[in-house]
């Protein structure tokens, strides 16, 4: 859900680009945090916790808390609340601690 009209602010989004989430193609604005693009597409569950496999989303959205770690282009533990979206990125939910390949 994007805010189209705001009484105080004007949003200047970047170029609309495609990327994949769990293999599914979705769109977002280039340069916005990956988490913002996912949230706008209705995706809130970003990973599962290591031991109890509980669903987790973001919490602080400014790179402090590590609640939003995902696998991006094969790299685990990416803080998607601050990692900027680029065309063609491959974004996947992280299970547990993630594995370096």
């Amino acid at each position, binding site marked *: 859900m994007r805010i189209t009209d705001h009484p*105080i602010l004007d949003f200047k989004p970047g170029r609309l680009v495609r990327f994949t989430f769990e293999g599914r193609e979705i769109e977002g604005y280039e340069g916005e945090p990956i988490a913002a693009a996912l949230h*706008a597409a209705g995706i809130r569950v970003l990973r599962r916790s290591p031991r109890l496999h509980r669903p987790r989303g973001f*919490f*602080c959205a*400014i790179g402090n808390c590590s609640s939003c770690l995902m696998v991006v282009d094969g790299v685990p533990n990416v803080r998607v609340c601050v990692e900027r979206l680029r065309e063609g990125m491959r974004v996947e939910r992280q299970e547990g601690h993630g594995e370096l390949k």
Partner: protein
Amino acid sequence: MKSVEIAVVGAGPAGLSATLAAAGQGASVALIERDEHLGGQLVKQTHKFFGSARQEAGTRGVVIARRLGQAVREQAGIDLRLATTVLGYYSDKVLYLEEPDRLAKLQAERAIFATGASERMLIFGNNDRPGVYGAGAVQTLMNVHGVMPGRRVLMIGAGNIGLIVSYQLLQAGVQVAAIVEAAPRIGGYLVHAAKVRRAGVPILTGHTVKEAVGEEAVEAAVIWRLDEQWRPVPGTEERVDCDVICLATGLSPLGELMWQAGCRMAYVPELGGHVPWHDDDLRTSHEDIYVAGDASGVEEASAAMVEGRIAGLAAARSLGHDRDVEEKLGEARRELAALRAGPTGEKIRRGLESLRQGGDGR
């Protein structure tokens, strides 16, 4: 290795003000910011600031961020380092920096840590469900990135942040089911409370959240009443339809770098937690390190800007710079005292008193 006279860490209201004040004294300054933009959390503050004209009263935080950022970019003698994280401070006055593609070192005669604060969690059932978001996160998502955090939000906390973010949610077209506050009284400014009340948002004092409902993400919340001893009253549970539970339950100062640098830290509840001991010049127990803004004690951004000025001026003065520095310091100290003089500054005054006496003021 590059060296500067003063390194400022953090480009929020305190750091930007410190940078401008120090550079205005003729000091060479490096401003180091983890993010790619200047302004810190000001960039999501759409409300008008309080205070007086000297602290940009009546101006929205987003506009203040733009003005301060522009002033820093136009001021000569500032080495601006965005997207750069400070990893540590070492005894030879060297800061280790993580730049996007490499590690770097920077020597600084004085360092000013304006590292801000982080949001506090609250203990309740399923508090890790996606949809339980910090108030700052909600602001970032909607006011910086233009994405609605949800359809209907339950706000936890009626301090200034909870009240202001509720109003901002309404402005973004998001419903606010209610504002829940554990204390028997509204902690934020009553003018902020009035704004959300007349827009139809109830404020439930003496209530808290019991649990989040939803298997994969928040689908509702259960709230319940607290008695005079802050104990939940069984049987008073109420289900609230919402897809976001927004936590505005306070901030904790971010002092890791100062812990690591060996500054004497003190636990002062009134200042938000662990803060470095500091004097009226915002100088910590480490003679080369100053602190400003929420990292020195959680307070309003208007106070953070004045603290930044004081730290910047004092650090420059300690290196021999003097462009009417005493006069400017005196003026800034008077402004800060005035901001804290009223009933809403009582907690900060108490916290600083406790800190001066060594902290752990219980």
